[in-house]
């Protein structure tokens, strides 16, 4: 990336946190006095430190642009968010279909997502995990598992 156009992520992070702090502060001011005291203090502190982070980000950006410091923004990769999306789908399916069926399908799919290509470890660990969960949570701890339309 061209250093002349460099903007530290801390600028955006600080500004975003500051805007959120202001929005929540406005909401908090509508609370009764006793209820708003503590969150107001926390939000005012959050606002101060968000602005501080944004200011440090501006300083960092200026230094990089002048060539007096070397700093790169953290790279946000796509893979972690695909995994997050898979967790969301897993939870939705678990609510509708049930824990064991969803997990039996999700585990090998997620292993594929993480790059596993060997069938035996995939199926072996899926069966092993399901049996372990059934033994520990259902038999030993008597936990009621999320049950959808299926088992």
């Amino acid at each position, binding site marked *: 990336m061209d250093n002349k156009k460099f903007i530290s992520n801390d600028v955006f992070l600080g500004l975003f946190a500051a805007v959120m702090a202001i929005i929540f502060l406005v909401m908090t001011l509508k609370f009764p006095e006793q209820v708003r005291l503590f*969150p107001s203090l926390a939000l005012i502190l959050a606002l101060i430190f968000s602005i501080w982070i944004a200011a440090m980000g501006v300083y960092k950006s200026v230094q990089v642009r002048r060539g007096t410091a070397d700093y790169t923004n953290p790279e946000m*990769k796509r893979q972690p968010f695909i*995994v997050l999306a898979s967790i969301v789908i897993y939870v939705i399916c678990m609510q509708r279909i049930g824990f064991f069926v969803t997990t039996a399908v999700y585990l090998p799919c997620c292993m594929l997502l993480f790059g*596993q290509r060997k069938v035996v470890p995939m199926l072996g660990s899926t069966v092993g995990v399901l049996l372990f969960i059934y033994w520990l949570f259902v038999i030993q701890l008597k*936990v009621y598992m*999320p049950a959808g339309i299926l088992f």
Partner: protein
Amino acid sequence: MEILISSFQTLFTLDVLVALLAGVVFGMVVGALPGFTATMGVSLLLPITVGMEAVPALVMLASLYTSSTYGGSMTAILLHTPGTAASGATADDGFALTLKGKGLQAIGVSTVTSCMGGALSGVALIFISPLLARLSLLFGPGEYLFVALFGLTIIGSLCQGGVVKGILCACIGLVVACVGIDPVTSYSRYTFGSNALGSGFGLVPSLIGLFSISQVMIMAEMSKESSNEGIVNKTMQMLKGKILLPLNEWKNYIIPVIRSFIIGLFVGILPGAGGDIGSWLSYNAGKQQSKHPEEYGKGSLEAIACSETANNAVCGGALVPLLTLGVPGSATAAVLLGGLTMHGLVPGNDLFTVQAGITYPIMIGFTISNFLMAIIGLIAARYFIKVTAIPVSILAPVIIVLATLGSYAVQYSMVDVWSMVAFGALGYIMRKHDMVTAPIVLALILGPMAETKLIQSRIAARSTPLLMYFMSRPICVFLTILIVISIAVPVIQSRKQKKNNDTIMDEE
């Protein structure tokens, strides 16, 4: 004395012994896996303890804490990959010994000294804690408010990304802790009309999201298929000889072990200073006092004894302020505090009087777990490194499933599962921006306590201005000084370090 005898009777029951063994083994596995922390292990195990009695549940969590610290040393010595930050000081000497064919002896010294450090800190915990707890009887709401604030200031030393970001994280945590119905007035705060948010965000799902799901997302960034099976097998072939040194050689390590135990214990008692600081301080002290300082870093068994004694001694030390004042000394201790509150235990003098029947077995169980850890370690340490051969592609999906189930199992609530997902995403984004997640956890735990004590202080102060009320109380003044020190020291240290780095760069 009576309480000690009855505690042993409580401990030697089947369910407690099974919990103890499970905690130790699971802790050693978690410790051996690089990237996995004791905090993550405790947070994953926390939901399983919901249905258990308080003693086995907390003995399991406490034993996991100490054995995961030890577990980190096995991969540090044999693979030059510290499983936990606390084993960083062990890695160079341990791996140098492995290359010389003395890996097993290094494991032996690490096992015995970890056991000594942990067990001695457990004994110290049993004797120091009740004395310190009596001091808490002098505390009113004002003092507890300042104790909570003091606990929050440990973020300074928890944040590698900077104190400012750490404090912002704590503020976010304090606001998140306010979500739900206010316990005093029953007024709904930040629920946006949702009944599901009425009771706020659950502590356990938040912890699991922040530590486990964010870690899985970090794992997803790694290469598609990463397994070090080949390296593990090669290392296994290099291990030969006896694991334990001859008895006459152990006398060389008595003084380093005692010195490192004292350093580790005090570092543990100090809020925020974790096992890594304890082991490095002890390593440096050992090097200064050693007859063979030139061997440090090149394969010194004494160096391993110093760092491993200290990092396990930190565990017992960190439990002292946790049980007596409710101030978690580290991120793992904060999660353990979650475990205490989940089982209805409130830190303070009552833990050592009214609930002594629960507290003493936990402390003694913690001490015994160090011996159990040593026995298992001496027998099976060489096989524990095999867990590092498990590929991320198998491990990560299993963690997702266990984390999801764990979040659900606490209250049988899908809202908790969604909280876990949200906190996981938040934790990942924070970690990518040099923000650590531990301050949020501390704030979630200490925030409600601080708010309640603030309200009680206002009532107690009556017409006196609140600031005057606080400053008229000596303990509050003392705690204020400690708070200023705990904020100032990391700032001064980081500036000093920056200055040193600049000087080195200028010289280059």
